[in-house]
């Protein structure tokens, strides 16, 4: 499980996270909602270890590992996956090569046997079929020339292949039409099970119609100001963040 206590972090000396307390038990999907600038993306970057985000206090552990002490690639090998809000293009790097290199890097770090090209292709095709994606995507450069929807689906494909224990989805729904949104949601829902937990970060309630969370947390001004069941998302949609802020 993911356990965050009193987490504070800053960028360029400016405090963004001001004491986050959060627990996501194994097998649960939690949503984090909040207005722009509330610290949602910062939280996902701090947890995944991006440079430029300085942790000034508090702790974060995943399945007992002190993740804040680990390199980004070690966190990945430990099972932490971040679906990027803006997936990055890697020109000339084939999607299949990238996915296999990543999968094998993680397997190696965990002391598992690496997959050869044939084994990998078989696995990739299987997962792609389940996500109704065409093989063609494997041949293209990583995210190069992908539409917004394709990029997000590619993130979900990576997640399906890497089988993380914890997925953080950073506004994966932004810029998606309803069909793409369903594919992304189906991908996440297919992962759900006792060994998978997820932190779904979103601005809108819409995604949560498809990925129904176990808990919803409202992040404002760098703190979690309210938590509740899935109905909290609908409440927010109806009343806006202002109402929560006033109540908090």
């Amino acid at each position: 499980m993911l356990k965050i206590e009193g987490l504070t972090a800053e960028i360029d000396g400016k405090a963004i996270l001001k004491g986050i307390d959060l627990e996501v038990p194994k097998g649960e999907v939690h949503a984090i909602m909040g207005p722009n600038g509330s610290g949602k993306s910062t939280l996902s970057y701090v947890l995944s270890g991006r440079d430029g985000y300085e942790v000034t206090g508090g702790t974060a552990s995943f399945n007992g590992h002190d993740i804040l002490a680990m390199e980004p690639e070690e966190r990945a090998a430990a099972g932490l996956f971040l679906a990027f809000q803006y997936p990055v293009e890697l020109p000339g790097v084939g999607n299949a090569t990238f996915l296999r290199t990543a999968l094998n890097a993680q397997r190696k770090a965990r002391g598992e046997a690496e997959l050869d090209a044939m084994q990998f292709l078989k696995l990739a095709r299987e997962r792609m079929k389940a996500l109704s994606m065409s093989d063609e995507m494997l041949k293209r450069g990583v995210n190069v020339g992908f539409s917004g929807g394709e990029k997000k689906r590619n993130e979900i494909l990576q997640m399906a292949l890497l089988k993380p224990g914890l997925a953080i989805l950073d506004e994966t729904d932004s810029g998606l039409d309803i069909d793409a949104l369903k594919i992304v949601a189906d991908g996440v829902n297919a992962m759900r099970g006792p060994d998978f937990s997820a932190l779904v970060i979103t601005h809108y309630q819409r995604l949560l119609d498809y990925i129904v969370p176990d808990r919803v947390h409202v992040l404002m001004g760098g703190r979690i100001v309210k938590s509740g069941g899935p109905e909290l998302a609908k409440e927010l949609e109806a009343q806006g963040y202002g109402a929560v802020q006033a109540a908090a």
Partner: protein
Amino acid sequence: MPAVTETIETVQQATESGYKWGFETDIEMEFAPKGLNEDIVRFISAKKNEPEWLLEWRLRAFAAWKTMEEPRWAAVKYAPIDYQDSYYYAAPKQKVGPKSLDEVDPELLKTYAKLGIPLREQEILAGVEGAGSVPAEGRMPIAVDAVFDSVSVATSYKERLGKEGIIFCSISEAVQTHPELVRKYLGTVVPQGDNFFAALNSAVFTDGSFVYIPKGVRCPMELSTYFRINAKSTGQFERTLIVADEGSHVSYLEGCTAPMRDENQLHAAVVELVALDDATIKYSTVQNWYPGDAEGKGGIYNFVTKRGACRGARSKISWTQVETGSAITWKYPSCILQGEDSVGEFYSVAITNNYQQADTGTKMFHIGPRTRSTIVSKGISAGHGQNTYRGLVRIGAKAHGARNFTQCDSLLIGDLCGAHTVPYIENRCVSAKVEHEATTSRIAEDQLFYCRQRGLTQEEAVGLIVNGFCREVLKELPMEFAVEAQKLLQISLEGSVG
């Protein structure tokens, strides 16, 4: 185990960052006296038992060299070279022209084994002699000519190639056995007085490879020469001549390494290619001379003249180079497109890390009608490296319908390095079409983070991104070589980020 796989493993076994081929072979050597004068030229010619015409040829080159000045237009900086403070002939002491590998000094054989260069012919049945090197089924063997300092020590598969009429041997041997061919073509693409370094080479060249592919023959295996500089204070001046007769086809690979030394060593080679009607020559180089240490001390000065002449109609010459080594690279593999519809190609990856400097590119001379050329250059600069693409596309008045496409991309890693692009285009023909594209980019922090979040280490991430950047060039290499080149790129950039 196939030849190249061994090489790849040699590369993979590489541990910490640094040059892995920098060992020195302890072997008894024979040197000419230090310095350069007419007597040295005569000494070399006599050592090789050359005919009179070749000695005369060398002396003309030497006379020309004395009147020439070292070129200073390249964007590279180095202290003046004292040409009198170097040995121009250094050869392992051994019997002249060993008949078989058994007569070659075991120290030499060990050296090549250590470098992962197979000298033993890997016949399916000949897994004897502890070589353990039976090629995987269906895998094409590679014929190798190994040049150690000034002389060729061994050439494999000569007999098998001979059955097809292909001549593949050291150039010294070719002078003895096929003087008419050598005389007909030597210096016809790069004349003795072409430039300072070519003149120097013409005067003192000691060995190199000679290839002749007869009419209509498709060479059944990759030909390859492996150059090794070993001796101290020695320059290597090799000369390679490849002639592809009408309708023939050959793919040739060149590799090179040197020990790590604090002094700079000069390597001034000349490569001449001649393609007649409908012939194709594919020439690939993986250049891995010692680049000097992290502070820029030592390393090879690689001042090389490479040029191919597409003499025949529909002939094609394709240069592919992966330049990862050398302290300084000064090299412009070029094509003279004389035959109508002939094709010239240049695919290049040049990496400069630490204090390496590279000034490299190509020249495409379009003379015949409908000649076409393609230039794809990928420069990668890291550390304090300086990387210049310098190219010339010249289209003559009779090159009707000629076409050129040039693409120069530069990738910067860190903020202390430099990338420069100097394209010259001269067009005298209205119906010709010339295109030039250029980009400069950096490895972005978000690309690195994206890769690391997926589980790659920083260095794996850089390797992957750089290989992606070079993909268009790497795919031109013979397949097994391409894998090796990818590993080499990653090793060359170790420690360049973070």
